[in-house]
């Protein structure tokens, strides 16, 4: 993922880890509704945010992602009832911990986005991309081969 680093026309690469039932469907809706949003997010579909191992986020950063976005169903709307509630605790701790070791706060973002919120999804991607662009290419935790 590091091939376009150091180039003048750098654009961020953002890994979006999203849940199958809400955010992935939301992204689909944004697509079929023809809403424009930046093409910088690569989505990874997982069954539920509760299934996301915090290691995924760390590993994505090491492999060269400039930003990581995690999104799932709103609390109370989880397809598996409580998956996103346990995810919420996990990611609160993770978010605090990553900024504690000195990682920029905006590199790793968490949000909720339901299947009906195509517009919100586009806004989220736009917002996250802008923030990561403002930070510039990732340098911390990135493995250089």
């Amino acid at each position: 993922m590091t091939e376009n680093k150091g180039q003048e026309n750098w654009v961020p690469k953002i890994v979006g880890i999203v849940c199958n039932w809400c955010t992935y469907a939301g992204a689909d809706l944004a697509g079929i509704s023809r809403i424009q949003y930046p093409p910088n997010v690569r989505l990874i579909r997982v069954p539920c945010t509760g299934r996301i191992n915090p290691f995924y986020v760390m590993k994505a950063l090491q492999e060269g992602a400039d930003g990581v976005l995690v999104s799932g169903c709103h609390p109370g709307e989880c397809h598996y009832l409580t998956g996103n509630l346990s995810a919420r605790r996990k990611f609160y701790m993770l978010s605090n911990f990553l900024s504690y070791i000195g990682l920029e706060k905006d590199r790793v973002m968490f949000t909720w986005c339901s299947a009906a919120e195509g517009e919100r999804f586009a806004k989220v991607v736009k917002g996250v991309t802008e923030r990561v662009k403002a930070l510039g290419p990732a340098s911390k935790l990135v493995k250089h081969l």
Partner: protein
Amino acid sequence: MEKQIRETAKELLAGKKVDVIIGYEQGTLPLQATPCFIDNVDDADKLVWNAFCSQNLAKYVHDVIHRHKESQVRVKPEERTKKIVGVVARGCTTRSLVIHLQERQYSRDEIVIIGVPCTGYVSKKKAAIRVDGAEILGSAVSGNDIVLTTAGGDTTAPLQELLSDSCLTCRFNNPIIADVTVGEPAPPMNVDAEYHDVVKFENLPDEERWAYFTKEMAKCMRCFACRNTCPSCYCKVCFAEQSQPNWVGVGVDDTDVQMFQLMRIFHMAGRCVDCGACVEVCPMGVDLRKFLKKLDKDGFELFQSRAGADMEKPPILSSFAMEDRQEFIYEPEEHA
């Protein structure tokens, strides 16, 4: 106290209440008591209790019980036996035992806890600094002082100054759960200062924190001593050695080391009891506590729970509530 521990151990062994007692014996090196396994009454006099008992014995409880369980796999179900383990446990050790019990690693009737109030153990690193890195040939505690013997003579220091950082601000120096308690409850430590280090670090700018993190992690040579001594690290296959997926690269890249530490430390969220065992065994002196303590602080501030402090309270990451805080959730700006 030592005498009482020996008496209790003898009683338990003689009464066939336990198969083995895990405690500390006189170590072969100064400043270090060695964990020992006592399975007959005559050996019980080996047990010691002093300011050099730095290891967290819950680790061995888990090891012994699980090794026994594995040995029973090929035995007919009706002939399987249970191994009852007795353990000499101070506050942090009992917290680790609580975590094991909550994580259903073994049942309460498989362990007998000899609770010991604790006044802290000596940090080998602080002792080494005290004698300017000279080799310590002997150590003895007399009253509130500790005498360190080196080739250049004796150094006397107040015991309080050489206690491990975890002990100085320890909140749970008396056992949380115990079947037998020996001695008088220990006086409280300086709990108000518990998070001072963390708060100070939190207030530094990003770049300084990152510089400190990379500096500390650059020392790590991945000997895995911290993992091997940690009672909460009991996975049969550790992510650090897993190859599918390959979480941690085997190369010498700085980020591989950072990734190992980051993942191991984060694995301790809601599970680290701040016993200081990892810090004590680290041969490179990595400041692990600075990062582990942050998880403890967050766990308490966000979810009002401390690891292993209460048998009834589930670990923070194994439970949830609808009304949990979620300020960290990103809300897209309206203009976007």
